[in-house]
């Protein structure tokens, strides 16, 4: 059972196996799933489509992983996407240009993060309540910015963030890969990862050990806000318009699901950004796969839910312990001698 895998790979192994299994499953129903070709200097194919489409959830999941590692949760990320998208669209609509639009959108994400972080770390409101405030109020703010309509724009420069390509790879995919790698490296090459995990497990003990828990807590919500801003920019660029009502709607839940599929505990502590991203890819593969496999669209949510349940049950340590117990129990009845060998 025990391969000599490096710890990082051992950590993400269940998610990799799941992703491969889901891909195999989809390929059985839709043989062309793994097709890949070059068209107009771009890679195209279902797999590339998935990598591109998973951008918003993957980005949200990256930030959400850090927040959840501190025993928190950020329900406002979907709304933050809507606000940042609205800000970007408003900038373009007012003729400010691409640079200011991106800068202001990112600044907006930062402010949203600071707001959440302040409520949680300084005022001490429970994360689920604190971020619920922005989740509900934020849609209103986004509507005020778009003045209640869908704010469209025609700016090829900005649209590049949604539909452009770098070396044949879609820009959204590049953005989430770069963000994920950068944050993961930042966490693991510095001591941030350890400190975040420490405050997630025991904030009080960490503070007594001298960890600046308040600043760190604010920082993870800011990181989450920034990731949401990137996601907001991508979505807005993709549809060339800002829809305050629907942009990022319910995506916070997909992001949380991605983190959970990634095997990160909602109780905080140990985290893996890579595993959360794999979680996001798994969700998107299921979504796309169901469509490709040709099931009527009304089955989508049910099939998705069923698959998610299966994945989570297989990942549950309690379930696995039970399985091992019964397997050992079964063998004990057959050959008591071999069991002693195993116990060692």
């Amino acid at each position, binding site marked *: 059972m025990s391969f000599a895998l490096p710890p990082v790979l051992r950590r993400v192994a269940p998610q990799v196996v799941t992703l491969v299994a889901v891909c195999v499953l989809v390929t059985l129903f839709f043989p062309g799933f793994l097709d890949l070709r070059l068209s107009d200097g771009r890679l195209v194919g279902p797999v590339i489509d998935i990598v591109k489409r998973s951008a918003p959830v993957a980005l949200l999941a990256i930030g959400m992983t850090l927040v959840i590692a501190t025993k928190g949760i950020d329900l406002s990320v979907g709304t933050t996407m809507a606000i940042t998208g609205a800000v970007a669209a408003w900038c373009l609509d007012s003729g400010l240009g691409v640079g200011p639009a991106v800068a202001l959108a990112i600044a907006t994400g930062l402010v949203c993060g600071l707001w959440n972080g302040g409520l949680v770390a300084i005022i001490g409101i429970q994360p689920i309540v604190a971020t619920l405030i922005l989740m509900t109020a934020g849609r209103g703010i986004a509507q005020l910015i778009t003045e209640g309509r869908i704010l469209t724009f025609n700016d090829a420069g900005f649209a590049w963030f949604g539909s452009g390509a770098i070396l044949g790879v879609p820009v959204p995919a590049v953005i989430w890969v770069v963000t994920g790698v950068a944050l993961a490296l930042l966490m693991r*090459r*510095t*001591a*941030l990862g*350890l*400190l975040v*995990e*420490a405050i997630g*497990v*025991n904030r*009080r*003990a*960490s*503070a*007594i*050990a*001298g*960890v*600046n828990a308040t600043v760190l807590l604010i920082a993870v919500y800011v990181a989450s806000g920034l990731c949401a801003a990137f996601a907001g920019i991508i979505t807005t660029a993709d549809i060339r318009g800002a829809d305050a009502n629907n942009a990022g709607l319910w995506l916070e839940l997909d992001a949380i699901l991605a983190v959970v599929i990634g095997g990160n505990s909602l109780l905080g*502590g*140990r985290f893996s950004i890579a595993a959360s991203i794999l979680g996001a890819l798994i969700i998107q593969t299921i979504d796309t796969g169901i469509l490709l496999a040709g099931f009527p669209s009304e089955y989508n949510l049910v099939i998705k839910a069923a698959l998610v349940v299966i994945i989570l049950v297989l990942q549950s340590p309690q379930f696995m312990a039970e399985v091992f*117990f019964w397997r050992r129990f079964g063998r004990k009845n057959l050959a008591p001698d071999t069991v002693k060998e195993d*116990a*060692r």
Partner: protein
Amino acid sequence: MLLTIRSLTKTFPGTKALDGVRFDLRAGEVHALLGENGAGKSTLIKCLTGAYRPDAGEIRLDGQPIAPRSTSEAQELGIGTVYQEVNLLPNLTVAQNLCFGREPRRFGMVSSREMKRMAQDMLSGYGIDVDVSRDLGTYSVAIQQIVAIARAVALSGKVLILDEPTASLDAREVEMLFDVVRGLRDRGLGIVFVTHFLDQVFALSDRITVLRNGCHIVTEDTAALDRVRLIEHMLGRALEDEVEHRAVDHGVAGPVKPEMLAFDAMSRRGVVEPFDLRIAKGEVVGLAGLLGSGRTESAELLFGIRGTTTGTARDEVGPVRIDSPRAAIAAGFGFAPEDRKTDGIVADLSIRENIALALQARRGWARPVSRTEQARLAETYIKRLDIRTSDAEKAVGELSGGNQQKVVLARWLAMNPRFLILDEPTRGIDVGAHAEILRLIHELTAEGMSLLVISSELDELIAVSDRVIVVRDRAHVAELTGADVTTETVVRAIADHGREEVA
């Protein structure tokens, strides 16, 4: 024989927690289960209560082999357990707690009148005066403990396991609890009593079983064992001197140590009255007082965990800022807290990470303590403090209490602080680790570190302290130095009702 255990074995990755252990419990006896931290007491109890499944061996209750798979199954079989931390719901009434899960029903609804009567029945004979319709949380821990016992006895009724029941009780409450336990013994229950307080073992138990490193060492009648032999059984080596008593010679005034830190008029309204404190280099100051007298609170002011209303701190050079733990650490302070579960350890992280945590926090996130450096630190302190673990990557939460305490100590020693506050450093720790920690205190002061030690165990406090400050009713009321430092003077100062203000 009420309960017999034969060749019980339980293995965890890297350690054999129980190795062919046997244990007998008669009806109508109190049987003390003793051993150092990590000797296997908890594992044995968890096997009995169904929290663990043993790998091999046999448990018989009334001659019938049993294999409880959960706590509730063990309860139904007749084995009830009461833990140090009361496992009841403080926000429900006493009656609701007692009848939880088997509420008397009338027309499908819970009948509160019937429930009250049932609860009163269950508590009768325990000699406590409790209004069963009040919330459990409004009563003292001792009363809650007795309620927990009453519940366990009513549910199970054959075997009662008391796991460190007295750890957070004062002397009077301990006596009250013991009366209850003796009553139950006389009613024919078999009682397993786990504790670190040897005095209580001799006061209460009929027989003693000692475990060491997962093995059964000895079972004997309490009357046939003396204290020294018992400790030798627990440690597995002959004892030169139980605790290195009188290590500090209070009679002789040594060379005057240079003053290092001075705290003036430290106070927090409603928590601690203003007090002054001088600490010399290499000095150990003891802080004595009852639980809740303001001992821990004083320490928390000094370490910046609680804000001060008034007060200043300075060292040889000038003022020192201690308005947060971070500031206090920057000033060279360290603090090993009393409640190590909530304030000390970061349970899910490894021993290595826990030891490196404070060092890392001081260095800042951008300059990580490298993996090799962390491993070296862990290696050093696992050896120096004799932390019992299979390896440094084990989560601290899986260690026994004494070893967790050593990890917290290691965290601060790695910082090489000039002033270290130890709040109850030996609470819940076995004799072996106890002596080691006292020895460590001597070593540290010899290296020039100053210490503030808080402890409820006066003998121990007096043995290590150059000076003892007595805290009573949130005020520092007396300071004893030199030959005045004896158990008797300290006790008198704690008990003294004439309030001569010293601070």
